[in-house]
């Protein structure tokens, strides 16, 4: 029972973080929510008995993709700070 409740909570958090990542007005917040989403995905893979995917998702899906997106937000900010549009 508690396991099912945890799964339901995890599924709801996945949806919530995804929707936040898609709708947050600030790109920085969106990327943060996306990384949260990636970590929750890793948790979901662990719950599905897929530790390989949990590792890959945490390292690649959340880690590397997150780093790429963060770097790009920084790039975007530096750019718009220099030449306001």
């Amino acid at each position, binding site marked *: 029972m508690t396991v099912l409740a945890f799964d339901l909570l995890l599924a709801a958090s996945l949806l919530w973080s995804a929707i936040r990542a898609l709708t947050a007005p600030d790109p920085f917040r969106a990327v943060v929510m996306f990384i949260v989403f990636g970590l929750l995905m890793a948790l979901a893979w662990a719950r599905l008995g*897929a530790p*390989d995917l949990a590792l*890959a998702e945490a*390292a*690649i899906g959340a*880690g*590397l993709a997150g*780093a790429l997106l963060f770097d790009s937000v920084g*790039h975007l900010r530096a*750019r718009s700070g220099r030449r306001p549009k």
Partner: protein
Amino acid sequence: MKLLPRLGVTAVFAVLAAVLVHAVLNLPEPAVRLGGAVDKALGQSGVSHPVTAVLLNFRGYDTLLETAVLLLALIGVLTASGQVPGSMRRLPSTPHAFLQSLARLVSPLMVLAAGYLLWAGSHRPGGAFQAAAVLAAGIILLYLAGLLPANAASTSSLRAGLLAGFLIFLALAAAPLRNGALLQYPVEMAGALILLIESGLTLSLALTLAGLFLCLPDEFEEEDD
């Protein structure tokens, strides 16, 4: 975008999701069960972890093409950066002292972790891709801390490093063709060959993944509008 097309797209995907949920709740029992086939063939795969067996033996051909996709993405990133293949982004002017000590402390641990993941892949969760991701994170950290000078590796040896894993994989895929099928490892050598492929892939994929980050178009580099 105007309101009406937005509503239209949203409605289409809402309907699609609803129909998908209906379909998923009414799925029949699958006619084929691959789980049994995997278990039966696992003994001849050279590894004891089923996911690794599928990834590098039963469906190793997928993995070969996937490695090409990753290389391709790096070449695409280099194209987009307008850089000569192999060159990397400029270093931050003054690397942070904290970042440097962190990198010194963490990077050996990352190498250890990558080695463990690579070794573990044959019998438990882990493997080349996870190990490469950890190693890539280490490379990026060292680079950003200024501990990995830009001219440490010449362009051509860097490119050779990027390709080595793929070329080893390609050679081992082609070698059995003389008297067998693509990627058909001899059973008694399968374990060793998979470890060889995975070791090559770990190094090359680590460089590739780090390259995807380090070769992104740089700030303030061009003004051609």
